[in-house]
């Protein structure tokens, strides 16, 4: 783990009164390996380590009696700075507000829609769920079941295309005085131009105040391209990481945050609808560091 590697790094630098550039570069190489093992994307690792190197050559380290420990602390700080501070609350000022969920196939969007519905209902909001997924067998049934479980209405948006269904569901939400409409969409690959155009069109039609990327926390290097692509397409306002209960290092979170600046808002910590928490940047930085 990074913590084990860090004690090795600290040991190597201990006793050296001044840290040389050679020491620093050797340390950065160890950190590079550790971050890649934690699934942080390569271009992001390079940027993070440039930052660590710059601070590592600075005054503070030059004067420090324990440069090794300080370098490690610098990396921790760079990681938690990247992950941002306390997540801000969802933007739900408009009535009805739309939360659009998007992401790759199997990431956990439908389950997360149910979790969000439960979370917001507990805050006293009047919530409704809708799905515009016409591809996956029993996708809409799946969300309907979750809607019943959390006691919120499910709107079956009429229309042939996803954007038509979304618009129809939004009109129903307006009629019924719904405060928040959670919009579940079909999984899609970023290389599929038609499907990326589809989600872009859905967003233009419903003008969701929250556009959240649902991302499987065990994703590897591809998380970088995925985040950039979805961000380019719907201008993401946030990201929800799922399946963190699989004990993942979660480097994908760092890749998303560093490359797009999209804030991480929530994490899914299990299959049950209660398994849903606010994103904790300190805790995530700790996971990545092992």
């Amino acid at each position, binding site marked *: 783990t990074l913590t084990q590697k860090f004690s090795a790094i600290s040991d190597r630098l201990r006793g050296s009164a001044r840290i040389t550039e050679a020491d620093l570069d050797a340390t950065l190489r160890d950190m590079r390996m550790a971050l*890649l093992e934690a699934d942080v994307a390569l271009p992001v690792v390079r940027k993070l380590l440039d930052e660590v190197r710059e601070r590592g050559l600075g005054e503070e380290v030059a004067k420090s009696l324990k440069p090794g420990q300080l370098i490690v602390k610098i990396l921790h700080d760079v990681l938690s700075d990247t992950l941002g501070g306390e997540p801000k609350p969802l933007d739900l000022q408009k009535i009805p507000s739309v939360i659009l969920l998007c992401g790759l*196939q199997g990431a956990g969007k439908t389950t997360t829609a149910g979790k969000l519905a439960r979370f917001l209902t507990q805050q006293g909001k009047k919530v409704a769920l809708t799905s515009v997924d016409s591809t996956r067998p029993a996708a809409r049934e799946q969300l309907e079941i979750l809607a019943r479980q959390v006691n919120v209405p499910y709107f079956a948006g009429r229309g042939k295309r996803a954007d038509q269904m979304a618009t129809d569901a939004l009109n129903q939400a307006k009629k019924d005085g719904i405060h928040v409409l959670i919009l579940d969409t079909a999984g899609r*690959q970023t*290389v599929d131009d038609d499907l990326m155009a589809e989600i872009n069109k859905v967003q233009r039609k419903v003008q969701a105040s929250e556009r959240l990327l649902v991302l499987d926390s065990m*994703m590897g290097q591809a998380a970088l391209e995925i985040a950039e692509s979805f961000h380019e397409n719907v201008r993401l306002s946030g990201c929800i990481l799922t*399946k963190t209960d699989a004990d993942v290092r979660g480097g994908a979170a760092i890749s998303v945050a560093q490359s797009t600046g999209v804030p991480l808002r929530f994490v899914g910590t299990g299959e049950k609808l209660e398994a849903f928490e606010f994103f904790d940047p300190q805790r995530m930085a700790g996971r990545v560091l092992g």
Partner: protein
Amino acid sequence: NRAGEKLTDSEWQDIEDALIMADCGPELSINIVNKCKKERQDNLHQLKEHMLNVFPEVKSLNDDKKPFVLLVVGVNGTGKTTTIGKLATMYRQQGKKVLVGAADTFRAAAVEQLSVWVTRAGADIVKQAEGSDPAAVSFDTIQRGISRDYDVVIIDTAGRVQTDTSLMNELAKVHRVIQKAMPSAPHEVWHVVDAGTGQNAINQVEKFKEIAHTTGLIVTKLDGTAKGGIVLQLTHRFAIPIRYIGVGETLEDLLPFDASNFVDELLP
């Protein structure tokens, strides 16, 4: 002829970067590049040969029993249910009689989803009430598979993370009960892995192999950005054969694994 030309240092760096960005893992990527350079296998063709040597001789499929019983496992959302639809279709096209057991008795609309695929594939399904014991469904499915003369029986299981002890115990029980129904079964246990998975795939495959005695891998979603380089590490460590790859969401989107094509895709 590019493949035969000696690679420059900058080209080697591009290759190492490409392997890392394909999820081959930093250690394996660096080792492959260094080993090739050291042994003077320093053109693209030789590099590919070196990478192909990671893949062991493909063992023949253990599918000569009747019915051939296949257990499908993996973490949540990797594509197990959809893949079973594709496999059922493939076996039906070979003129085989296929029975599928809906042993995911937990997730919302899991049985409905599988039923649609089974109908599309022209296969038959065994299902029980929601919340019933997956082991009981598996047992019933195999019994019916034997008594009604099916050629292939495929068991769909719920997604589960390898860190969930009670769900891994449930899977161990499913495996035991399948053996009770038919001593030689399951004849194949295929672990479905999402091509976009990072280093966690190693722990996943390791734990599932311990519990469910995995005999094959299926890598899905190779139609996306992810190159599935994690497969190189999985093969290197566990030598479990990769049987098929998923390249889309329809019934035709299943291909036999081709190591040479796979390696080509990993390189820049």
